């Protein structure tokens, strides 16, 4: 670890970036093109094991699993982006205000955040889904709410650390407005820490989204998602094990990519200090 300290890139970052790159390319590609139609059924092609024509094989309706996985990556990826976007924006707003101003609001908000933070996020998401109902948008809202507390915590900590830094005191003396100090002076300086939590957020969002879809209370058919493909595939484990492996390994791949990136970013940050 130490001897690589001076390098800007480390192995974690490189592996993570390559893994994430594959996902990104497949999900963008899936918007325009998939090798076969993800919904085209064919009785003749039922349960074909992986081959050159169908790299991941075909499912119980003779659909090409690779094409379906591509589509599903797109859906899962998009949902995770929105979840992280929602929870990080909320996290920045709440964390900035509570961290910078402190006081009673801070105490109350942090009490709530701490209480919620100790909670498994899938449980929290279940509560929100059971109130709002199923569906794509509700999954985003549910997970967005569930992940906000962890962002609030990180952002607040950084704002507390920086609020009395010299350059902030100067800015205050120069009469800079509060929003200006919060979002132009402090915010850019917390990004290195923030990116790590964004990646961890991604990691958890992918796991939670696929979990909800697996349980059948996430994204609804006809949209293919990795979780719902797994739950369909489970019934054919004996006859077509590749059907379950394809979406499952894809989820692991996506989660590992995010985990590698977060590890890589935090190591790079440590080596810069």
């Amino acid at each position, binding site marked *: 670890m130490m001897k690589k300290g001076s390098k800007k890139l480390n192995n974690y970052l490189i592996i993570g970036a390559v893994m994430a790159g594959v996902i990104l390319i497949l999900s963008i590609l899936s918007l325009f093109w998939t090798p076969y139609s993800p919904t085209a059924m064919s009785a003749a092609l039922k349960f074909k094991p992986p081959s050159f024509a169908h790299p991941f094989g075909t499912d119980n309706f003779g659909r090409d699993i690779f094409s379906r996985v591509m589509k599903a990556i797109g859906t899962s990826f998009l949902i995770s982006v929105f979840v992280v976007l929602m929870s990080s924006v909320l996290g920045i707003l709440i964390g900035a205000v509570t961290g910078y101003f402190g006081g009673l609001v801070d105490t109350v908000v942090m009490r709530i955040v701490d*209480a919620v933070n*100790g*909670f*498994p996020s*899938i*449980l929290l998401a*279940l*509560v929100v*889904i*059971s*109130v709002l109902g*199923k569906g794509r948008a509700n999954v985003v809202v549910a997970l967005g709410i569930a992940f906000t507390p962890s962002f609030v915590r990180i952002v607040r900590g950084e704002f507390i650390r920086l609020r009395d830094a010299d350059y902030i005191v100067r800015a205050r003396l120069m009469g800079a407005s509060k929003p200006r100090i919060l979002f132009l002076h402090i915010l850019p300086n917390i990004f290195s820490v923030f990116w790590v939590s964004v990646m961890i957020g991604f*990691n958890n969002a992918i*796991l939670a989204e*696929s*979990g909800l879809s*697996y*349980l*059948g*209370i996430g994204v609804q058919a006809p949209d293919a998602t990795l*979780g719902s493909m*797994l*739950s369909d*595939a*489970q019934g054919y*484990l*004996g006859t077509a*094990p590749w059907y*379950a492996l394809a979406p*499952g390994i894809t*989820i*692991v791949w996506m*989660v*590992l990519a995010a*985990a590698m990136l977060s590890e890589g970013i935090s190591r790079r940050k440590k080596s810069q200090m």
Partner: protein
Amino acid sequence: MTYFIKKIATLIITLFLVSVLSFLAFQIIPGDVVNSILGTEATPEREQQLREELGLDKPPVQRYINWASGILHGDLGVSYRYSKNMNEMMPVTELIGDKLPVTLWLGLISIIFTVLFAIPLGVLWAGTKNRFLDGALNVLTQGSMAIPSFFLGILVTYLFGIIFKMFIPGAYVSYKKDFWAFVLYLIFPAIAIAIPKIGMTARFLRNSTLTELRADYVRTAKSKGASDKSILFKHVLRNAMLPVVTFVGMIIAEVIAGSIVVEQVFSLPGVGRLLISSISTRDFPVVQVLILYITMVVILVYFVVDVIYRELDPRIRVE
């Protein structure tokens, strides 16, 4: 003593707030319950009668008090979906009653697995100077954390159920019929729940041990001639285990969440499966009570962990 009074007061306030929140959350749901039970063709008189039966004609505060006091007395209300027969509604207590042991046992076995494997693994990892072992454990634990529990459940089913034929997937045996067959069946879902937790806990223990190894007292012990082994087991581990206690509390909360998903994979008739099906059928009294129960268990676990931590670490008591 004041510490405990304070702690218990906070516990009671938290439990109260949680109950208010889980009551309120289900008040803002759109749609009329009475319509969804009776259908749209019921007579207004029948609708009015059911509304009174369910207490829906009273103001919200009154309803909360009724609901909360009911829960304290073990009356959890009635399910909207399940019914005993044509005229009698299904009390939630009866619905949950025989499902609770399944989830409790599943959770317990998972936690035993986690602690049993994670602690030796973490200690071994922290103590090793073998770079290959270090790297292998790093990859294994990182990998175990990236596999979602339901996929792990499917892999376990495939490996142990279909290839090795050690159990028949889906052939759940009720604890009432044959307790040991029941435990045997639960071992496999418990493995699926435990593997990621073992990875997390081992990593955590290793890191906390490595931090402790840099402490001053280690240098002192070393200069007094203590062997590496005795430093690790007599001095370092006692300190390194402390944060693990809190961590295991968190893991228990995660195990509860994990069992909700894994019960589905192995078709176990537990609380988690009931929760998911009740969410799907919008059976709110059941959802409400289950969420309140699960939340309370999590809060109580954290409370117990806090108390244990304080007992174990005298430094905190001084403050």
